[in-house]
């Protein structure tokens, strides 16, 4: 057993322990804070599995933004005195046995995997040069399986429309009340004056580097969203009204650019979402740049939640 493998065993044990804590923690607040740690640990596991792109996404979205959304909800539900029914012990045992069976089944699948794993890595590697990109994961996302990526952007927008439509009639088109667990303190304000310039730089770098190294539009966009959210949380910047035209434009510019390039593929290349090989890299970079912006704005607004008050005149 090598040292690396020993570390991985510890990591796996820690991950399971932390996940158990998230489930059994007494208060929602504790559970969410532990979930944040869980996201970061999981990111390390992704690095151990040689999936650095996924690690970045998991740390940014799985651990980071999801936890902010949950914390916001916990702070809104904090005051509610509603009774929570208790669950009987036999019911817990039955559920536990059932879940253990599911886990055992999945473990059996992992145990009996064929020795020679099916893989598309050689195919992806062969066609990598044609895409003009150096990062195979980015090539899969933007070239080989671009439909997925385009539809996923649409899912993000649909989720945002869903969240907005939960606003009360009187607040429609108004300003989201970005609720955070703690009220802004001087430390938060200080951090928010220091962090955003660095964060914005890292976000843009991550999108730029994503063409040839791990990184990309999602990860970069999430960091931009985090920076914007920080400044709004510290009240250094107002939360915009959802009916602002510039905001709506930023939301759709990425998916629209992607769709436009995709449709242009009918005329200048063979099919939908195909790029002419000579200019494929510049095209992908332009699409990724607009997507980074749109993803950042969409994620930040998903966190901010439905509008709750009308903009002050």
């Amino acid at each position, binding site marked *: 057993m090598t040292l690396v*493998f020993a570390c*991985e065993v510890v990591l*796996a044990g820690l*991950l*399971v322990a932390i*996940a158990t804590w*998230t*489930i059994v923690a007494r208060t*929602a607040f504790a559970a969410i804070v532990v*979930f944040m740690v869980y996201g970061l640990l*999981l990111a390390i*596991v992704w690095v*151990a*599995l*040689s*999936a650095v*792109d*996924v690690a970045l*996404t998991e740390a940014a*979205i*799985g651990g980071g933004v*999801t936890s902010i959304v*949950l914390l*916001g*909800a916990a702070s809104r*539900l904090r005051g*509610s005195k*509603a*009774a929570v*029914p*208790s*669950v*009987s012990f036999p*019911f817990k045992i039955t*559920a536990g046995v*059932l*879940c253990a069976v*599911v*886990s*055992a089944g*999945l*473990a059996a*699948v*992992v145990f009996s995997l064929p020795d020679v*794993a099916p893989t*598309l*890595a*050689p195919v*992806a590697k*062969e066609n990598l040069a044609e895409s003009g990109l150096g990062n195979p994961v980015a090539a*899969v996302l933007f070239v*080989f399986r671009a439909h*997925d990526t385009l539809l*996923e952007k649409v899912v993000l927008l*649909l*989720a945002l429309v869903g969240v907005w439509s*939960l606003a009360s009639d009187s607040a429609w088109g108004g300003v989201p009340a970005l609720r955070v667990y703690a009220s802004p303190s001087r430390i938060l304000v200080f951090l928010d004056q220091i962090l955003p310039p660095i964060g914005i730089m890292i976000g843009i770098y991550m999108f730029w580097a994503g063409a040839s190294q791990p990184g990309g539009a*999602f990860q970069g966009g999430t960091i931009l969203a985090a920076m914007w959210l920080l400044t709004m949380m510290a009240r250094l910047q107002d939360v915009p009204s959802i009916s602002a035209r510039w905001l709506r434009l930023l939301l759709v510019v990425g998916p629209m650019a992607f769709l436009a390039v995709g449709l242009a593929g009918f005329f200048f290349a063979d099919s939908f979402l195909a790029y002419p090989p000579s200019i494929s890299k510049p095209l992908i970079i332009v699409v990724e740049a607009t997507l980074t912006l749109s993803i950042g704005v969409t994620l930040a607004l*998903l966190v901010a939640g*439905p509008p709750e008050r009308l903009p002050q005149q």
Partner: protein
Amino acid sequence: MNSAALFGYCGAVLVGLGLYGLITRPEVLRKILAFNVLGSGVFLLFGVFARRGAAAGLGADPVPQALVITGIVVAFSATALVVALLVRLNKETGQVIITSDDPEESGKQGVLP
């Protein structure tokens, strides 16, 4: 056992844990958290298949990796939407759990099977 198999078993356990939380925690917020744990377990299994598919000088098969990245973003979208639904539910009814609309059923509130 190699590291891919190790994290494969880890993913299997996470799926079970998440499922357990989903079934036994009555509060919707805790169900959402548990669902995220369940989802991350499934993603981890994908990661294991990707790692096992390492070939042609790549550390892992890029196709499942890209699918997981898409999956994480979609899981986040679903979480944000369902959290907004929960907050609205709480605002309308003051509840943090989902109760039955049936008046006969809601009389039995407070005891789960």
